[in-house]
């Protein structure tokens, strides 16, 4: 890597680390260096942080950083030999050919997509590099490429975890007292049982010590089977020997009765052995008594539950990233760079998405850099990137958008807390938006090349809190402010305030805010999960980081899901009510109500049946009057039937749906009620799968629109394997749309592997019109080809 780039990166992180510890920044957070065991690195980090306040000139900064780089880049010999390693790489080409152009239905179009994905290690730090190129012949600007380089934290933790094998014991990290509870219960049980067994032993002249010893660890008797205890103490061999001794005793007794002399020692020994048997029986009886008592009092059940919980906790600890990181620092010889990357949750260059929270930034596509540094219960996220309104090649047929998003975005977000206990985050985002690419300025005089049109600043505070075992409550509050390159207050020549000035001002506060609250919880013992959410977006709120937030809206939603009969029956309900007020007053608004009610029953052998009802409507409220704008109701029943018929597996996935659909288009209502049936039936014959796919949508209001008319599709085919490596599916189809066309066709798909490195998928759909009433929108021929080559 170029030395200057390394210095630049480390400059960023060093400044971040320094900012965390500068007393005059207002952030009372210090970087905790106490966990760094290696004195060499500890000294280095401490000097770096403390030197922050000594920056006076560029030369001293440069010297400090150059030395820092040299120290951090001290690498072991094997890494110096192979600083960059390629682990795996695949190349994939996808192509879709369609005998119907997107732009001109009578044309021909193809879409191509080439991708290369690879995993690398740079000085043992894992990175994923992804390149993709898209082409589409339907448009003139038809070649798009993107590159993204992402640090793979999961892989990094996996490598550390495998290096830590046998080096740490997860039990040391148990923070709850489950183990103590378990030990206490078992110890108490052992103490009382042992005391009683010893009393029995004393009653039999301490002959039973060996037998009590044979019982082993009395704490483990809680989970042992009584029959085994009995078998252990009274095994066949022992019983046979006691029987023999009883016989011998009888003979001796007979001799005594007959006045004959007998060996007294032998007699005593035999008597003791016979008596001992009684003692052993008494021991077993006592153990039986205790087992029964533990069972009836619920102690055994409690022990089993605690053991299971303990196991789950240990598993969780072993997988917890914070634990792995802590142990890696303690037990492994890590370089400075490796320790640095332990602090990074993410680092992305090139094409990436920025995501924080719904009211900060959410799935924002950009080209730039973003990173998140995490310390002890704190984190810092920094991102900056270039934005575009039309990111996708599929948007290229469009030239305009009524709201442009071209420009750039910068984000800084500081978090406190952790995922398990709860965390708070403060974010500030700035967006500079333009109206598109720069044009030729030859015709414009006196204009600068900076194309920024609108600047928006968004600040968000979010807080996530844990409630109980599974409850999470998330609250967010956000404020936005927008300014233009040149804007004045009306009737004056005074320049308007900048966005940052507006944010720091309390003017217009309520009109430019957004608030959201979300609560979710789960009661596992009752198999119930539920959630509530509410949000308000003020009319003056504008967040380019999440374009789906609508100013002037309020939303309230509830959801609940419950299982019955050991999760065989599941019922769920979800309702959302949204209100949009885009006017100056409150008398005109739109209201949308959306619900989903579900009932699903799991039957034997993977079978199930379910019913779903989805009412959805939008109404317009104006001057106290309500009018229905759109209504959509859908009732569907679906089921999976699986049976063995004459030794063959038969399966049928069936769906029945009724739908009422009415909405206003301009001022005219569009009505489309429909009833649809779909069934996918399959039967397995050895390695082949025969299938029949039937779909019928009956529309009660056929129209001039092809998408609304009655549709029929019937397909019959077979899926089979050839030469053990190639999977094929062949089918014939008959489909039609009422008033438009009737077709027959074939479908063929082939997927498999060539040699070891090449995987392929080919899909071909070819049709012929039997009847054609109107020009088609779909083509008669489509192929999808995908080839995947394993480079390494």
């Amino acid at each position, binding site marked *: 890597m170029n030395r200057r780039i390394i210095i630049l990166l480390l400059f960023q992180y060093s400044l971040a680390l320094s900012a965390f510890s500068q007393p005059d920044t207002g952030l009372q957070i210090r970087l905790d260096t106490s966990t760094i065991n290696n004195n060499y690195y500890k000294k280095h980090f401490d000097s770096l942080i403390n030197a922050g306040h000594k920056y006076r000139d560029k030369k001293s900064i440069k010297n400090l950083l150059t030395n820092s780089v040299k120290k951090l880049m001290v690498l072991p010999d094997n890494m110096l030999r192979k600083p960059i390693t390629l682990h795996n790489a695949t190349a994939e080409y996808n192509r879709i050919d369609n005998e119907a152009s997107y732009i001109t239905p009578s044309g021909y179009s193809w879409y191509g997509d080439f991708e290369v994905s690879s995993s690398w290690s740079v000085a043992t730090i894992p990175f994923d590099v992804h390149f993709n190129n898209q082409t589409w012949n339907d448009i003139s600007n038809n070649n798009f490429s993107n590159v993204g380089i992402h640090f793979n934290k999961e892989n990094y933790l996996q490598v550390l975890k495998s290096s830590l094998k046998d080096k740490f014991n997860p039990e040391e990290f148990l923070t709850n007292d489950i183990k103590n509870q378990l030990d206490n219960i078992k110890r108490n049980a052992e103490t009382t049982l042992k005391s009683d067994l010893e009393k029995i032993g004393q009653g039999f002249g301490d002959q039973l010590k060996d037998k009590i010893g044979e019982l082993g660890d009395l704490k483990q008797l809680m989970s042992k089977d009584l029959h085994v205890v009995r078998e252990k103490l009274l095994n066949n061999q022992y019983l046979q020997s006691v029987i023999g001794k009883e016989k011998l005793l009888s003979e001796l007794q007979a001799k005594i009765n007959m006045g004959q002399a007998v060996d007294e020692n032998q007699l005593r020994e035999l008597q003791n052995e016979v008596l001992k048997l009684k003692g052993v029986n008494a021991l077993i009886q006592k153990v039986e008594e205790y087992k029964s008592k533990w069972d009836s009092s619920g102690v055994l059940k409690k022990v089993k539950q605690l053991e299971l919980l303990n196991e789950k906790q240990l598993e969780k600890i072993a997988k917890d990233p914070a634990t792995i990181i802590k142990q890696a620092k303690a037990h492994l010889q890590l370089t400075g760079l490796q320790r640095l990357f332990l602090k990074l949750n993410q680092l992305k260059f090139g094409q990436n*998405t920025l995501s924080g929270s719904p009211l900060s930034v959410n799935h924002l596509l950009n080209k730039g850099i973003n990173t998140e540094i995490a310390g002890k219960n704190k984190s810092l996220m920094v991102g900056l990137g270039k934005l575009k309104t039309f990111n996708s090649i599929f948007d290229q047929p469009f030239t305009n958008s009524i709201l442009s998003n071209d420009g750039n975005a910068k984000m800084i977000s500081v978090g406190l807390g952790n995922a398990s206990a709860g965390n708070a985050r403060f974010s500030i985002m700035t967006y500079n938006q333009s109206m598109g690419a720069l044009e030729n300025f030859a015709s414009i005089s*006196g204009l600068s090349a900076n194309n920024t049109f609108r600047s928006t600043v968004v600040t968000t505070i979010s807080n996530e809190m844990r409630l109980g075992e599974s409850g999470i409550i998330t609250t967010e509050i956000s404020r936005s402010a927008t300014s233009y390159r040149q804007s*004045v207050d009306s009737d004056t020549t005074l320049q308007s305030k900048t966005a940052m000035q507006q944010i720091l001002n309390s003017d217009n506060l309520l009109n430019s805010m957004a608030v959201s609250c979300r609560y979710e919880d789960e009661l596992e013992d009752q198999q119930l999960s539920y959630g509530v959410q509410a949000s308000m977006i003020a009319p003056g709120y504008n967040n380019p980081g999440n374009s789906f937030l609508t100013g002037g809206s309020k939303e309230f939603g509830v959801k609940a899901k419950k299982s019955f009969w050991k999760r065989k029956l599941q019922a769920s309900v979800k309702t959302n009510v949204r209100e949009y007020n885009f006017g100056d007053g409150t008398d005109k608004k739109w209201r*949308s109500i959306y619900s989903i009610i579900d009932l699903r029953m799991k039957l034997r052998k993977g079978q199930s049946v379910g019913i779903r009802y989805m009412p959805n409507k939008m109404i317009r409220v104006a001057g106290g009057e309500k009018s229905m704008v759109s209504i959509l109701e859908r009732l569907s029943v679906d089921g999976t039937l699986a049976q063995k018929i004459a030794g063959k597996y038969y399966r049928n996935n069936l769906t029945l749906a009724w739908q009422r659909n009415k909405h206003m288009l301009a001022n005219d209502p569009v009505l*489309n009620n429909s009833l649809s049936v779909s069934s996918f039936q399959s039967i397995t014959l050895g390695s082949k799968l025969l299938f029949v796919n039937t779909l019928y949508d009956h529309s009660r209001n056929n129209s001039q629109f092809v998408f609304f008319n009655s549709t029929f599709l019937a397909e019959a085919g077979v899926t089979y394997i050839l030469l053990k490596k190639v999977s094929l599916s062949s089918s014939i189809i008959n489909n039609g749309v009422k008033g438009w066309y009737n077709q027959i066709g074939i479908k063929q798909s082939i997927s498999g592997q060539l040699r070891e490195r090449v995987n392929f998928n080919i899909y071909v759909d070819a049709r012929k019109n039997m009847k054609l009433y109107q020009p088609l929108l779909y083509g008669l021929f489509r192929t999808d080809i995908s080839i995947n080559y394993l480079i390494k």
Partner: protein
Amino acid sequence: MSLLCLGLLLATGTKGQVVVNFSPVVYGQSLDGLAYALIMNSTPGNLLAKVTIRVRQGSMNVVTVIMAPFQLHPGQNEINKSAYSTARFAFGNNNYGLMVSQTGRFLEGEYEYCFEVDVSESKDPRLPPVFENCFTHLLLPRTPLLLINPVDGDEICNRRPQFIWQPPMPLPADARFRLLLTEVKDRQDIVEAITYNPPIINQANIPGNTLFYPSNAPELKEGQKYAWQVTVYVAKTILTRSEVWTFIHKCQDPKREITPDSYRELKEVDGGDFYVADTWLRFSLNNPYAAGELNYSITAMDASGKTVKGLPNLKLAAGLNKYEIDLSEKNKFKVGREYMLSVQLADNRTLRLRFIYKNE
């Protein structure tokens, strides 16, 4: 002759030679939309034009946009985007002006959009110095485009589902929808998936709010996650987009996975511990004799002592043998009950294993 000159003078003086075309239904919703007005220059030469846009709501001034001059070529011209970006915006000192300055969107109301084109700098004496076109429109800001079915995060069994959405209201008569459906790869962001992955469905010109699954598109694959999004547009202008929703196509219960690290060895005398068999019974034994059929039985250890029927036939090989039996498939085992597995070897030795059946 004088009549001819008078006629020419009237023709050039009275007819508008710079005309602004603007569709407030499509573009009148936002500040950005004002830049998409078209200016028709009917003169034979270039004109240096200074465009001012005034938007009023009733008697209130909402916004005035004053642009730097730019060239108008003969024919149809778009408003120069750079000139628009660098224009001076004067927002009205009222709620309408405030809201549009903060969000870029106009509030609901009756608006007048006036486009003034000042060509006086062209210094053409034949032309009036200023041309103005005004458009009035009752503006109802559009509600968002909301997706309905398939539901976000749902698992559906239908290989050819119907797509349904709530259109934005009010909707222009010539508005059309475009639906995109793509696969989502492992650990891929859903917006990246819808933007960069090959489209299974890329269907435009949809006039309503539903789409039956196109007959020529490949069916959904078992276990695959998909992302879909709808865009509404008029001609070449995007009005708005929906969120990106995802769903998984899933018809079959997942095959229960076998973890090969917990085979219990059968013994002649067991230690009395119970093996907890969670759905699968995994056991192993060493067969020093010839191969054959495994002679085994499973008996309930409660008072009934019943032998479980319908167990699978298993082969016994020489040497080490490992077996897995899916206890849930047979429906003969009760959760929480104790059972004894007994295997009889060729030399009449019996190997045993106690287990408790669990199904979590």
